[in-house]
């Protein structure tokens, strides 16, 4: 679907606002002035003053000479932005995406909105009528691109509609200042006699870029629709948000739970329809005293199961402090993804790592205890025991190498090898005795050594000679000597694990 944009231009934005507040000003010529280099300069003038010759940029003293009855009011630099924001918020009734176009305009993305008013002309008349009834002078135009809509609103009659795909024709007769370009470029174009867009639109692009810079080309492309442009809405559209205002402030835990349940049901119903699931959601309670209570949850895979999501929130609901009461609840899904429906099996409900039950379980544990406590390990291509496995990045990450099973490895590995005292025949025999945690173990059987070299590109140090040793009780240990046997240098024996 092609996009449609509306541009609204308030020619006398600030003066209109003043005459709205003080109706007697409407009949008088009056200007707004602000200090500039030690004199008062006109920054806005109403239509009455402009027809009599007081224009923007003129010093107040000069204007007074022309119009002796001129009213001068102080200007407020922030006023335009404030007014535009207010009007933009009011305009959300016409479309959810309303952007501010400083200093004196609004931009509306109205794709798919106009049919609700019975057509584009009716839509524009409706907006124009209502804003004019507030007392604002406004020019409005609709086109396929922001650039064209904006240009046409400022240089054509009150209400203009540029039909879909006709923006080139509409732009041809407009002056270059209709494009949003710097004044120096406009001046240069004027000097060269290029007074209309049609004069230079067919010139080679390389020539235009060389003489006027790439900004001219960009603005031209944006106006003609060769370049995408989007507006920045005043209120970002929160696609998945549900609100529940309460008649009476809620103070009880049960009340909060009911609110949460209702919001979840409506949101999940919508998500199910769109075959989507949420990954992150936040539940907010707006308290009477102005504070906002918030709880957040996250899931490992997109979910639209309201029962499961409720369980995740339930773990945290006791952190909500209602104080005097909560008057509005909102539920927002900040991250939403497509749900891949799984084939349901009739038999054998052990679904492996793709099982929804498993994901829901992990979500609950994560919600209560934290994600950094849950690990899944996959093999890594290292011989060094501590590095032979690594935590998987995700719950269903595939293995890149197979698990190695050719060498004996202990079932329980100490996270850090512990130094032990041994009695060992030199140079390369397994120990005969060793003392670990105060107990003396006499070794009856042993296998080894299995030498594992340091991975010098990762870490400096000595190699390890590993022995599998079994003591007289049948307990099996993994011992190693760090480095070669050498009288001159020190070497040390360690215990590193327990075999089953």
């Amino acid at each position: 679907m092609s996009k449609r944009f509306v541009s609204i231009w308030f020619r006398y934005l600030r003066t209109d606002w003043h005459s709205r507040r003080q109706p007697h000003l409407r009949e008088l010529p009056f200007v707004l002035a602000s200090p500039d280099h030690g004199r008062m300069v006109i920054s806005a003038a109403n239509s009455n003053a402009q027809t009599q010759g007081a224009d923007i940029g003129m010093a107040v003293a000069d204007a007074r000479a022309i119009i002796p009855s001129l009213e001068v009011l102080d200007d407020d630099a922030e006023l335009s932005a404030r007014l535009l924001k207010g009007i933009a918020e009011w305009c959300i009734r016409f479309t959810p995406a309303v952007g501010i176009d400083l200093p004196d305009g609004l931009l509306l993305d109205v794709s798919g909105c106009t049919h609700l008013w019975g057509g584009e002309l009716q839509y524009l008349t409706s907006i124009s009528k209502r804003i004019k009834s507030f007392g604002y002078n406004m020019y409005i135009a609709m086109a396929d691109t922001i650039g064209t809509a904006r240009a046409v609103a400022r240089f054509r009659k009150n209400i203009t509609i540029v039909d879909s795909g006709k923006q080139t024709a509409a732009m041809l007769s407009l002056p270059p200042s209709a494009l949003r370009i710097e004044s120096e470029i406009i001046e240069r174009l004027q000097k060269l006699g290029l007074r209309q867009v049609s004069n230079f639109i067919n010139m080679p692009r390389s020539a235009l870029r060389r003489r006027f810079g790439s900004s001219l080309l960009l603005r031209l492309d944006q106006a003609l629709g060769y370049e995408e442009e989007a507006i920045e809405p005043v209120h970002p559209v929160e696609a998945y948000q549900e609100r529940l205002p309460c008649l009476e402030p809620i103070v009880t835990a049960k009340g909060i739970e009911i609110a949460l349940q209702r919001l979840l049901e409506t949101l999940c119903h919508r998500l199910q329809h769109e075959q989507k699931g949420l990954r992150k959601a936040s539940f907010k309670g707006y308290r009477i005293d102005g504070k906002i209570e918030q709880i957040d949850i996250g899931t490992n895979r997109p979910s639209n199961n309201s029962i499961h999501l409720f369980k995740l929130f339930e773990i945290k609901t006791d952190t909500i402090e209602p104080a005097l009461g909560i008057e509005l609840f909102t539920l927002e899904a900040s991250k939403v993804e497509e749900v891949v429906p799984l084939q349901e099996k009739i038999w054998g409900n052990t679904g492996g790592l793709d099982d929804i039950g498993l994901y829901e379980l992990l979500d609950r544990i994560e919600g209560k205890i934290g994600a950094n406590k849950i690990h899944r390990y996959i093999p890594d291509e290292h011989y060094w025991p501590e590095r032979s496995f690594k935590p998987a990045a995700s719950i269903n990450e595939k293995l890149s190498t197979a698990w190695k099973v050719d060498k004996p490895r202990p079932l329980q590995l100490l996270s850090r090898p512990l130094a032990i005292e041994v009695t060992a025949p030199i140079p390369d025999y397994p120990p005969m005795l060793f003392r670990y945690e105060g107990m003396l173990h006499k070794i009856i059987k042993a296998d080894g050594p299995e030498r594992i070299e340091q991975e010098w590109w990762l870490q400096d140090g000595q190699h390890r000679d590993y022995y599998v040793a079994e003591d007289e009780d049948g307990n099996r240990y993994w011992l190693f000597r760090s480095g070669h046997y050498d009288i001159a240098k020190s070497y040390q024996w360690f215990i590193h694990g327990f075999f089953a």
Partner: protein
Amino acid sequence: MPENKADIITQLRKDILPLQRFKKNRGNTIGEPLPPAITNAFPNAEFPFGAIHEFIAAGAEDAAASSGFITGILASLMDSGGVTIWISSYRTPFPPALATFGLAPDKIIFIDLKKEKEILWAMEEALKCKGLAAVVGEITELSFTASRRLQLAVEESKVTGFIIRRNPRAINITACVARWKITSLPSEPADNLPGVGFPRWNAELLKIRNGKPGKWEIEFATGHFRHISKMTILQQEQQKKTG
């Protein structure tokens, strides 16, 4: 009619078992993990899946032996692609070593928790989850109430639970179906070769609901448990003597 009476009694025993919440295994798709000598001690002569097994371990060595025994059983449980959750407080098993027992260590999700309370909560939540193959928990103290909660969760979901209790202060009464004590035994390499042989354990079934407790020597070799009867031990000793 003494034979008839005996028949009636065995029949009645079989009828009572389901009343005592001893249900048949799910679909019987899982092979028996243990050798027949041990399996005969269980009710209905089949390994009680979907129940809580408690393991008493005296130290790190016993804990390793217990986890080895559990891993052997897990291998047959996880054969159909199920996932195991392993919840432990301090030392987690070394994943590459689990592969030597014939299971896929990447199908095990490890959860490291410090507090016993959190471990119990996580175990209960996990045991309620029907999609899992088994849940292993390492915990020191297990009260009767806690064990009953776990057992009730298991009866609903048919997940098998294993609890390794390391150095418990007292071996109290629990609602677990079975209580084991696994200790290491000196291995016997084949043909009197030097070195360390296959892992060998003394598996003591201290308590089993509706079954007969017992004591067996078993060995885990080539992916299976093997019962070592007194006869084979005698034979081996004779071999040693004769040389």
